[in-house]
């Protein structure tokens, strides 16, 4: 671990090791101070953990889109947050209509399924159009070109949807069966949070099955390994790439509806920006290009964001700890890039891929 103790002393390694020790020390001291003060009850910690896990599930679903596209094209699709917004924003109108007719609360599970499918299809269409119009013509160009294009596409989508649906905030109607809480060991866990975690888990397992157990999944993995060899094996590379964008889009759209059940308010054209950046952080945290890594990274980020401010920052006496939630997320990104660039589950990329 401590490379500077060996014969090959390096100031860079020394600094990084000192930084590593300081960070661990700060986390331990902060956590110790908080836990020993007993300010926050066990029930409140569980509440925070459950909220973090639910938020993390949504990050994970979006992060999968980043990681799928990176795995296959080695590009960061920075417009993916807007793909999430497209599904969530479009479906809020369907949700309102279902609520007005009473269908939402008479057949809640069916209504949610319809909404997820609708949002998934909208986001899938947007993602496929994005690939076809903005990224495919740039395939083979330097990596900076599609990156800048993705940022441009992100703004284009934001303002297109602003033009379509306006700039006012909308809210998903609340589904009655998701209200309330279940008591586990005397601790109330909101039903909606259990729903969010379970539905995200189903979608993630579905994706894992698709990639690992189906022919198209095998084709995706083959294209990810080596496009030229995959082409020689008779795989339609363009179709597989388009399909991958579509799958990522579907997951993002589904995440939009699940997010609408979890945090119904604040639906507008700009709602995809922060979750998009957080999901990208989660994908890097887990190991970009690695599907289980994106899932784990999302959940990890959600929980750290929820617990970190109260556990570590408040324990260190930092005022306004809750306002530093985003700082924790992006500090995690920086730390991962410094100490484990390949992410939690990622492997070191070969020269060609990196």
């Amino acid at each position, binding site marked *: 671990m401590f490379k500077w103790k060996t014969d090959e002393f390096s100031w860079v390694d020394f600094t990084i090791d000192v930084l590593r020790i300081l960070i661990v020390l700060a986390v331990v001291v902060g956590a110790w101070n908080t836990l020993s003060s007993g*300010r*926050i*009850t066990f*029930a*409140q910690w569980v*509440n*925070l953990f459950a*909220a*973090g896990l639910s*938020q993390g599930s949504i990050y994970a679903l979006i992060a999968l889109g980043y990681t799928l596209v990176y795995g296959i094209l080695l590009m960061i699709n920075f417009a993916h947050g807007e793909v999430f917004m497209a599904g969530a924003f479009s479906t809020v109108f369907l949700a309102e209509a279902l609520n007005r007719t009473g269908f939402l609360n008479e057949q809640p599970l069916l209504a949610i399924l319809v909404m997820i499918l609708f949002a998934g299809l909208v986001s899938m269409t947007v993602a496929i159009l994005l690939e076809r119009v903005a990224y495919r013509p740039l395939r083979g160009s330097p990596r900076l070109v599609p990156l800048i294009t993705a940022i441009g596409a992100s703004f284009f989508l934001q303002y297109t949807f602003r033009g379509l649906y306006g*700039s*006012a*905030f909308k*809210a998903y*109607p*609340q589904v009655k069966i998701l*209200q309330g*809480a279940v008591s586990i060991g005397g*601790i*109330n866990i*909101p039903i909606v*949070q259990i729903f969010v975690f379970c539905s995200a888990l189903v979608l993630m397992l579905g994706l894992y099955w698709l990639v690992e157990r189906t022919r198209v999944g095998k084709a995706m993995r083959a294209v990810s390994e080596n496009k030229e060899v995959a082409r020689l094996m008779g795989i339609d590379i363009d179709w597989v790439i388009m399909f991958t964008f579509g799958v990522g889009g579907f997951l993002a759209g589904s995440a939009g509806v699940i997010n609408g059940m979890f*945090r*119904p*308010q*604040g639906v*507008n054209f700009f709602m995809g920006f*922060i979750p998009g950046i957080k999901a990208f952080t989660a994908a890097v945290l887990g190991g970009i290009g690695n599907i289980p890594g994106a899932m784990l990274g999302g959940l990890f980020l959600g929980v750290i*964001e*929820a617990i970190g*401010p*109260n556990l570590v920052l*408040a324990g260190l006496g930092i005022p*306004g*700890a*809750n*306002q530093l*939630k*985003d700082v924790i997320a992006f500090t995690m990104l920086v730390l991962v890039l410094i100490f484990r660039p390949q992410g939690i589950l990622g492997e070191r990329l070969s020269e060609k891929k990196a």
Partner: protein
Amino acid sequence: MIRHICSLTCAISLLAVFLLPLSAVGACDDPLGCVEVAPDDPIVVGAMLVMSGAINYLGEDTLGGVELALLDRDYALMGREIELVVEDSLCTAEGGQVAAQRMAADPTVVGAIGTNCSSAAQGAIPIISESGMVMIAPSNTSPSLTNADIAAGGSHRPGYFRTSQNGLIEGMRLAQFAIYALGAESLATVHDGDPYTSGLAQAVADTFADLAGDVVFEGAVNKGDTDMSSILTEIAVHQPDVIYVPLFEPESNFFAAQMQYIAGLDDTIILGGAASFSSSFPENTGEAAIGIYVSGPLVSGDAYEKLLAQWLDEYGSDPPSGYHAHAYDATNLLLSALESVAVVNDDGGLSVGRQALRDAVAATEDYPGLTGRLTCREDSPFAGDCSPGTALAVFIITEAEVYDDNWPPPLAWNFAVDSFD
């Protein structure tokens, strides 16, 4: 030779073209200059309001008030047409700055109604003041805007007035309401860094502490935050009787909706600010909004009822928020001042001295407005405050507002009738 004569003639003509308007301006002896309205031109009145974004309903509400005030005069003053120019000031300092720059760049604008948000006012005030114009805000409440002590965080400059009540007054009344009406002994406040929310939170906390209440938590969230579990848990540690949350939507929705999931806050009451005084608040918050108290403007009287009937005729629905009467008063204040200082020139044009207009608004005393009898003050920290501060009430949100689209909610306390002073 002929060429020289031509050049000379051209030069003299050009000089005449440039000097002609200057000579007209020269006739104006106002230290800040005059707005010259040509005989056939309209009088241009500006409005810097929030026309887009989460709280655009506030802009629509106040724009309606401005338009109805103009309609009362048939869009005419001193025999001339009045033209209304509207700029979107958003609810940010940058938005206010851009709107003010557009107003200041137009030499025909005599004065402006706006802004809605205190943050936008902070961006607009320096530009409007520097340009010699007058702005009358219908819904700014931040105490800093009428505080002329720059060193103490004040941002008042000459030319700024408002018909909405000062946050210091609103904060004092809400703290009194929490202690005397709700029986609160401990208080937590949450703002979002905006001058409006932070000013109100501070004013409530100060008065609550002065009245021997225990302020157990003063915190903030970031604009754009969706997850409030962290701050709610921190508040739950202190178990306050009341949380004062003057946040805007959607943060106020997230805060109220997520509070039910935090252990230890079961008996805590939320007291929201006027930023949540909109039918969209219970609609977007859902069931969790039931039982929440929100402060908001309350105007009554025959003249106000007439305005509401006019509103219904003109727009076909009820006003979306509660500051339309303040905007109506602000417009009338501006037009009355304008009428008193405008000078009709020999050519039939109008000349409006900018300093004279400021002085006329500042001299407003006991003006019979819809929101009370308006008197503009000059003493900091109330410099530019024209509101009597009586049009304020606390409402309670019930099931009818959440499920049946009822608005406004039932009255919990009317400060015009039951004052704690």
